[in-house]
């Protein structure tokens, strides 16, 4: 069920250059189940900014009724969000959308989790849920540069973790795909920039189960405004469509046009 609630900030800290980890407490955490779902955040009261911001759920702690958002301070909305302090509240609508299907990887099989930049956060909750299911996980996390890297140690606790940076200042120099080609696995779950998702789809969708989480500009976030639609792959110029906010944000590779 979708709930609207003023959630209390448990903590907020900058964990990498312009990357913030925000832990919130609220009853709506009870509704959060699938990894890869997101919440719609009203970063300030009033009219500026007016619209909510979609941010993925990075971690769910049902016992403490807490959940974590990890976001990059980008424009006006996320900048305002980053100034919020402990014990203040944030207006959250969620959980929204359909996340990653963990049941597509059987216990004992290996899942490859591929994240790029600010696409990394939802993979953290995903990885934990896969591990509790008995799935072996391997992470390949791509960042621009050393200062942007976050959560490497947390991912390492769950499984083998490779980090790439575009400028080579940390981990392997290059893109996630450079590391992926030497690994063996059964399924891929990926979230990140469109170019990365396209490369993953092009190289692996033919013979592996691949699930991709997409981003699109949103109005409502609940399926009513038709802001976030994409064409389906079997009808790329026709009328059939999927909404990223409700049918996604996670799709099986080959389901929609990237």
């Amino acid at each position: 069920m979708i709930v609207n609630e003023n959630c209390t900030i448990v903590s907020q800290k900058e964990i990498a250059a312009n990357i913030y980890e925000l832990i919130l407490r609220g009853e709506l955490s009870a509704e959060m189940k699938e990894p890869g779902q997101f919440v719609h955040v009203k970063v300030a009261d009033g009219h500026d900014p007016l619209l909510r911001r979609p941010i993925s759920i990075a971690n769910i702690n049902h016992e403490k009724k807490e959940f974590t958002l990890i976001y990059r301070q980008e424009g006006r909305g996320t900048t305002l969000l980053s100034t919020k302090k402990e014990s203040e509240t944030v207006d959250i609508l969620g959980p929204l959308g359909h996340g990653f299907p963990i049941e597509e990887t059987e216990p004992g099989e290996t899942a490859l989790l591929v994240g790029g930049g600010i696409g990394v956060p939802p993979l953290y909750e995903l990885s934990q849920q896969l591990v509790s299911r008995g799935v072996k996980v391997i992470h390949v996390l791509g960042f621009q540069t050393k200062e942007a890297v976050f959560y490497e140690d947390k991912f390492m606790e769950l499984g083998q973790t490779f980090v790439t940076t575009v400028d080579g200042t940390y981990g392997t120099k290059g893109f996630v795909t450079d590391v992926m080609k030497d690994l063996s696995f059964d399924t891929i779950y990926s979230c990140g920039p469109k170019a990365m998702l396209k490369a993953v789809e092009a190289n692996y969708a033919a013979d592996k189960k691949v699930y991709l989480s997409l981003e699109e500009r949103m109005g409502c976030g609940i399926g009513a405004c038709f802001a976030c639609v994409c064409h389906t792959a079997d009808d790329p110029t026709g009328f059939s469509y999927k909404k990223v906010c409700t049918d996604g944000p996670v799709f099986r590779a080959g389901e929609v046009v990237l």
Partner: protein
Amino acid sequence: MNRLEINLPGLHLKNPVMPASGCFGFGREFGSLYNLSDLGAIMIKATTVEPRFGNPTPRVAETSAGMLNAIGLQNPGLEKVLNEELPWLAQYDVPIIANVAGSTEEDYVEVAKRISTAPNVHALELNISCPNVKTGGIAFGTIPEVAKSLTKKVKEVSEVPVYVKLSPNVTNIVEMAKAVEDGGADGLTMINTLLGMRLDLKTGNPILANKTGGLSGPGIKPVAIRMIYEVSQQVSIPIIGMGGIERAEDVIEFFYAGASAVAVGTANFVDPFACPKIIKDLPELLEQLGFDHISECTGRSWK
């Protein structure tokens, strides 16, 4: 005492608050959040003869106190709306106002004729004001004679009263309103979105793939109030007002300007419970202001 119940051509409304077209889909999403029977009415997404995919994305861009949209009238087409969406909505005790769009007179007439026969469609809203489609649409909304002729043709075939949705993108809104009244319109709905544009700071390119889009939200409220104020004193048909409504106070302001009911658009995106909250708050606000019934507010600003 029910302070909110009102009657308009074709519409017996429990209260004068309804979601605006295009901001509520066909109700399904909000139906899982609250009981749609609590609404005064529902204005459903624009329907065209054939299905439409609409414009490429990005389709929305934020502005100060508002948003631009260029959805491009995406909808599943008349057949699907008649066979799937309207029957689904029939489970609720709420009148539907069907928003009708097209690119030729024939298109409008075809949709109007068939959709007006659906049992839960109690009125039509002729969308002659969508700024986001290349052909038709906007010409119908900016040239008085064209608007009048279209209204007449639709009136001839419609089984239910016809409201015409006016575009604010004109120099003389009163002239447009009078033209459609002459054409036989039973009511007006206003305003649709204002044509606008935003550019990306880094690239200099338009943010919307369609380049331009329709501005909605709290920022356009003063424009809507002014236009309703001007038009309501020059026509004798009722007005359903919209443009930036977020709370009960806004509703009263629209009534003061001359509206007889209101629709809520963009606010549904910010707070999906906006409509039921407004409906809940209205009686107490009326009480505070000393009104027995909301209809007493209509046109208080006139003279």
